[in-house]
């Protein structure tokens, strides 16, 4: 068992569950949708192994069945925003029937207005945040883009946590025996949040550091 594996195991135990991360992302899209007053808001995660964008959280239109749906990162506005690291606001998207159909094939919903921003963390583009159909003429466009940037920072941090936790768990899934046990113990101790548990964690960390 390597130090890296032990660290990954401990991290997986303390980084929180899949459900907690999903709740965090869901909270972000719900607040974004509420503040923009939009019909929908979505976060896409970039899956670099498949080179695809995946719906990770949706509020509003498509909320029930879009999470988990995938499309190639070469497709449409979300793909362009991801690759170019540029934020973008499109109006009148329905005016081009073929463009609208392309959007619908990837999202299941044809919006008239799309606000899209890349989710950047350090040097990585982790995904895309989209806000669909905010009410027309309600807000200052540059203020919208500023606000979207703020949500993007929050969403990118949440996606980075989710990705790190998933990678740590993937390491664990490949491991056998002790690493998985260490992860479970670390997770349980973290959730107890009492003094004895903390001391035990510190002692464990010291042992790991001296190996």
């Amino acid at each position, binding site marked *: 068992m390597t130090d890296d594996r032990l660290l990954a195991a401990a991290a997986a135990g303390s980084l929180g569950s899949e459900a907690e991360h999903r709740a965090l992302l869901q909270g972000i899209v719900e607040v974004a949708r509420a503040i923009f007053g939009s019909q929908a808001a979505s976060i896409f995660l970039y899956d670099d192994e498949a080179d695809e964008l995946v719906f990770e959280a949706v509020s509003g239109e498509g909320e029930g069945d879009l999470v988990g749906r995938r499309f190639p990162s070469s497709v449409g506005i979300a*793909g362009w925003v991801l690759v170019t690291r*540029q934020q973008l606001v499109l109006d009148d998207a329905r*005016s081009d029937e*073929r*463009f609208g159909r392309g959007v619908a094939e990837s999202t299941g919903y044809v919006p008239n207005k799309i606000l899209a921003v890349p989710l*950047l963390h350090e*040097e990585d583009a982790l995904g895309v945040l989209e806000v669909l159909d905010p009410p027309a003429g309600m807000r200052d*466009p540059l203020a919208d*883009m500023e606000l979207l940037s703020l949500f993007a920072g929050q969403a990118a941090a949440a996606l980075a946590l989710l990705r790190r936790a998933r990678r740590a768990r993937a390491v664990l899934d490949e491991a056998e025996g002790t690493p998985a046990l260490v992860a479970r113990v670390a997770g349980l101790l973290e959730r107890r949040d009492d003094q004895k548990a903390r001391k035990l964690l510190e002692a464990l960390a010291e042992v790991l550091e001296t190996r």
Partner: protein
Amino acid sequence: MSGPHLPAWSLTANAAEALAVPAPWPGAPSREWALDGSTGKGVRVCILDSGVEGGHPLVGEVQSSVAIVTREDGETEVVPDEAKDVCGHGTACAGIVRMLAPECEIHSVRVLGEGMTGSGELILSGLRHAVEQGFDVINMSLSTTKRRFAEVLHDLADTAYFQRTVLVASAHNLPVESYPWRFSSVISVGSHEAADSLVWYANPSPPVELFARGVDVEVAWLHGSTLRCSGNSFAAPHVAAIAALVLAKHPELTPFQLKSVLYATASNAGGDA
């Protein structure tokens, strides 16, 4: 510029008077001097983006189209491309350039459309190709955050600068570093809200150097259509087009001089008074 009688890297005391500046300015440059009457004729503008839809009513003729693709061995390659757009964005940029500089040449180098994997290499190869072609102006409404590309992009931006290719790139306001817009050899552009394509502002607090029209812009889109768009992506081609207008009228200007002209003729410097 170096020659047989001029030192390339230093200027001796007696050599200064031999350095004739080929474009003496008439005092502070005015917009009238800089671009009035110009149509951008003969200036070669490259759109490094998602391709350009040739024949679009707002774009017209696209003089050349190539795509950067990844071969099976992982290397990138320049191949002829149809005059098409895989997203709409490049057509939007080209339409803005055509609107302001109706007689310029538009050339498309498509670096997008193959997905995220390898996209940094494609952008890099696309810029290298565009610089090698010696275009007068290159519009890059895109950037990369990958630090491993920064050094090569920096070198390419400097090469462009010294060979008189003006590189115009859209900035972003996200809390991460991205390239090449932050390089000083590039003209970096953010958005203002005024509905006037010939209003631009010089920013006294770089790295964003100019603000141009980027909000609620009616742009060319796929299949001959139009959309209203906002974003720095659409501000950059405004400056690319204005650069084409100035260069058509004053082809002797270096990127350094052009940037100075854009500064001196900015709306907040009294340029459109």
